[in-house]
């Protein structure tokens, strides 16, 4: 079962906006997509093969490929390479797997489904887009590498796990949801956090408005690791105790950063 396969016909000379290229679309080759300052038929840029069966594979990929899987609601997209900005933008379901890295606004305003990116992601992972009040509201995002600035900005639900580092201002103005960062934090993580949970390895990099609330045996942790494979992998299956930092207290926030004691 291979589904549809898109193979680039050559190197891209301009940014390609793949909005609308979703698995399950019979007429993919005729789809008008943005190519630099022009519009082009997808078939001009990609060789389209295979059959529609809910899966779409993009061979090669490339940092020029913007908005891959934007608006996805079902099915699977696999990119055997990098993607540009806005991968999984406002998707509500399905699965997107990127074997390479992704640009800015990956999984921005995601409301469901799963996005897995093997490499690094740019700024504003899962964040709110222009003019939107809220970022990602549901679903799961797993990043194998590191994330750029403002990961999870204004996020209000769902789970983001970052295996690598998160640059400055991670979880800025985060409303709710769970953001786990295995690596180092840039400065001011969690600034303006209203609610929500950060899972961290160390408190270094937390914004100034966080205060240590001590070590606790949290039943919640036991529940989370049993309900989420991804969190189990991150927290350890026997997670139970954590040091809790409350914040951002500068703004009267009720969020928390938890450092799981292993």
């Amino acid at each position: 079962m291979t589904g549809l396969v898109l193979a680039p016909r050559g190197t891209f000379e301009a940014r390609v906006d793949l909005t609308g290229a979703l698995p399950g679309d019979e007429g993919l080759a005729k789809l008008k997509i943005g190519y630099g300052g022009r519009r082009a038929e997808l078939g001009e840029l990609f060789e389209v093969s295979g059959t529609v069966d809910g899966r779409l594979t993009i061979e090669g990929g490339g940092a020029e490929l913007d908005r891959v899987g934007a608006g996805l609601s079902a099915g699977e997209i696999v990119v055997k390479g990098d993607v540009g900005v806005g991968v999984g933008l406002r998707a509500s379901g399905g699965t997107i797997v990127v074997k390479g890295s992704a640009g800015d606004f990956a999984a921005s305003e995601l409301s469901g489904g799963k996005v897995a990116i093997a490499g690094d992601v740019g700024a504003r992972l899962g964040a709110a887009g222009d003019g939107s009040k809220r970022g990602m509201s549901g679903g799961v995002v797993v990043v194998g590498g590191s994330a750029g600035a403002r990961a999870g900005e204004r996020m209000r639900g769902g789970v983001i796990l970052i295996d690598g580092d998160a640059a400055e201002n991670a979880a800025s103005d985060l409303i709710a949801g769970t953001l786990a960062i295995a690596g180092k934090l840039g400065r001011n993580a969690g600034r303006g956090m209203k609610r929500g949970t950060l899972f961290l390895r160390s408190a270094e990099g937390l914004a100034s408005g966080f205060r240590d609330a001590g070590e606790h045996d949290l039943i919640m942790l036991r529940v989370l690791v049993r309900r989420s494979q991804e969190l189990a992998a991150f927290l350890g299956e026997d997670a139970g105790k954590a040091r809790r930092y409350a914040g951002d207290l500068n703004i009267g926030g009720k969020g928390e950063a938890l450092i799981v004691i292993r």
Partner: protein
Amino acid sequence: MTEPQGGGATPQKVVRPDVVCPFCGLGCDDVSLTVSGLAVEAGEGACGRAAALFRRGGEAPPAARVNGYEVPLEAALAAAAELLEAARSPAYAGLGTDVDGVRHVIKLACRTGGSVDHYASAGLFRNLSTSQRRGWVATTLAEVRNHCDLMVVVGPDPSEAFHRLYARVTPKTGRFLDGPRKIVFLGGEPSAEARTQLDGVVVETVAVPEGGLVDALSRLQAIVGGLAPIEGDPDMRPLAEALKSAKYGVLAWSAAALGEDGDLVIERAVAVVETLNVETRAACLPLAGRDNLIGANQAFLWNVGFPLRTAFRGGVADHDQSANATAEALKDADIVVWISAFRPERPPACDGRLIALAHPATEFEREPDVFIPVGQPGLDHAGLVFRTDTVVSVPLKKHRDSSLISVAEALSRIGGAQS
């Protein structure tokens, strides 16, 4: 109004009073210009920057150039049209032009495709980050001038960019003020010139540790909203009390000066004002308006429906504030159309071709493929620009005969040659 001077070979010296200044967005209209032939000197009313930007020697403007060679204007326009015809991803950048110039950028970009951004839009989009998301309560220059009894300047002194700000909006007296006006600099210091303008106004400064403005405003927001935030430096309680008891408190800032976290600073300042308005009156004065930035954005909104940083592809507009920012767009652009009619702003470095519709005095790091010197709106031709408060727009007039064409005309002719 005119004062004929001398005669013979010396060009007639004409003094033009009450000239509207188009540069910073305050829209001062009491600048006096002395024009002798092509030479221009700003006198009374002009701040230092306006004087420098209005100043012209008597020399004839440079000719248009293609690949560094002087050519007739027509040839340069044709060359530009040809380059654009072949372009794949144009980036229209700079955008320092009047409303008419922006209209023509839209028309051309709609045809050629490509992204459009203004070179000074960073501050605008920091403001939009909040105004578009949650809105705000804002005010205009004359409201501040007459109503505001307490102004809080958030961050660096905006008068660095808006030279005559305080003289214009916070003079010693205001129509509805009962006592002296007070101005608090939060996390910034008034310049020496600002202090002179603020003579008769009670000036206070509240120092904020480096990088601490977001947290300070967070605490202010919390206190005004009835929460009890943690203690921090500075103590924001006195300012919160002052704002609550003010009749018309204004929080002002220059978004461009607020740095990378500026959007977060602004969001908190807006929240403070929002909360204050439940019981008393307050408003924001967001300042960002250099070189008709606001006018360009306004013209975009009514013509395209989107703010700046919009790209056109096959005639369809797509708004994306990060992807279509000039710096991002340049990574992909094979041609940059640099537009800067108000000042000799240098175009950014880029790999692609460069068409410059630029101020005659522009010094290029790299010779543009096509250089078309353009006139300055409000000096070489009439035009319309918007003030920083977005509501008022001011008419610019022609004050000398320079033969320099307007951006609108240049683009219109490029578009005409192209089709």
